């Protein structure tokens, strides 16, 4: 479904991604873990070209989205993304946040989009907030809204960029519950950059450990968390799990 070939990314002199090749298959749930500055977020943001790779190729559903002249907007419609800082639209109501893209991009009529949005809001427990503006929502509610906004485009893959890192601790659970529910009920291909090790272990089919711009180790959650081979993985896990 997504195939990455020898991906490099430089920010000026800083070599952030140093040759990443990886494949994500249909319906797979993959967590990307690793220390800060290891390039995990940059890698995720390259997948929908929010960051332009310096070199390398990314194939999404067979199309090389790094090729010149490709209509990336078309492909992005199939790739939902959830951000660390929610990035909900403050000048739109909760309902409009969700219906905006499907209606503008003519995927749905306004009525269809609103009906679907209400169903989605129901699922994440925000139906009573439909007419509110985001500033009246808590962090956890904003992030649930952001997830629903992405799902409303009916994507083929969901990318989560540290979805709980900016949340107050008591709100982490509600957002993780929504992601868990989404994964179970939709079977969507999901890639999550996260610092929630317990969650990564529970939800993932595979875990990638990134360090210094490369995938240093990958495997099933049991392999990575239970029996890590790479000394850097061991060191990282011992730090975060014993914290």
């Amino acid at each position: 479904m997504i195939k990455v070939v020898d991906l490099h990314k430089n920010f000026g002199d800083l070599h952030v991604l140093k040759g990443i090749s990886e494949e994500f298959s249909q319906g797979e749930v993959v967590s990307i873990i690793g220390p800060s500055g290891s390039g995990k977020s940059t890698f995720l943001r390259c997948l929908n070209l929010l960051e332009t790779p310096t070199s390398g190729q990314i194939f999404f559903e067979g199309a090389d989205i790094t090729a010149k002249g490709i209509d990336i907007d078309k492909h992005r419609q199939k790739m939902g993304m959830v951000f660390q800082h929610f990035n909900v639209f403050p000048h739109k109501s909760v309902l409009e946040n969700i219906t905006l893209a499907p209606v503008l991009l003519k995927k749905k009529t306004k009525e269809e989009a609103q009906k679907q949005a209400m169903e989605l809001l129901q699922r994440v427990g925000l139906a009573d907030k439909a007419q509110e503006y985001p500033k009246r929502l808590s962090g956890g509610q904003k992030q649930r809204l952001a997830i629903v906004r992405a799902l409303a485009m009916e994507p083929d893959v969901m990318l989560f960029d540290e979805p709980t890192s900016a949340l107050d601790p008591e709100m982490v659970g509600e957002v993780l519950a929504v992601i868990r529910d989404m994964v179970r009920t939709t079977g969507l291909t999901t890639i999550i950059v996260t610092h929630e090790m317990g969650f990564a272990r529970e939800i993932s089919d595979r875990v990638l450990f990134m360090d210094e711009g490369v995938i240093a180790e990958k495997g099933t959650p049991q392999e990575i968390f239970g029996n890590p081979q790479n000394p850097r993985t061991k060191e990282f896990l011992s730090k975060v799990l014993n914290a």
Partner: protein
Amino acid sequence: MIAITVDLFVKYFGMFMEGMGYTLYMAAITVFFGTIFGTLICLVRSVKFPPVRWLAVAYVEIVRGTPLLLQMYLAYFLLPEIVNFDISKMQSVLVALIMNSAAYVSELIRAGIQAVDKGQAEAARSLGLSSVLTMKEIILPQAIKNILPALGNEFISIIKESSLGSSFFVGELMTVRSLLTGALYLTIEPLLIAGCLYFFLTFTLSKLIGVFERRLAVSD
């Protein structure tokens, strides 16, 4: 002195009001067209082809780096050479004011757009919106809230700067002052009246903008 000032104001009330009318007219025309051209400059600045971009940057830098009075003189002497029809003094002065204001307004707009969180554009693009749709639906509606109060302040600035038009006797408030000083040999009193009227205009407007700004903040 106070008695003379009050007398003068009462006697020449009509002239002062006419001068104030011209001042407001010049500020309104300038901000209106300044905003249109300022937006255009902003658009040119976002063109992908660098030499075109540099032209806009150079324009803004030069206009902001030279005195408005000089620009008015330049317009006053240069425009009649360039255009084939009769151009009044007022029109020359307005052209200079508009071209000057456009440079400042383009910076206001740019700053207003840049003040919108980068994550907003990323979220919109990640949903598949084009850069044009993102600008129109997500960035501009939020940037407007930063830009409108700044445009109000620009209007206040122009009210004051239009006084330079008195060098060309275009009829605004400072021209009225010059006329009265010349005719009556009174130096201080006409200045005091003009000063009070300018302050009345700018103070009232800045209070109005304050109210308007709080309204915008509420709907956030």
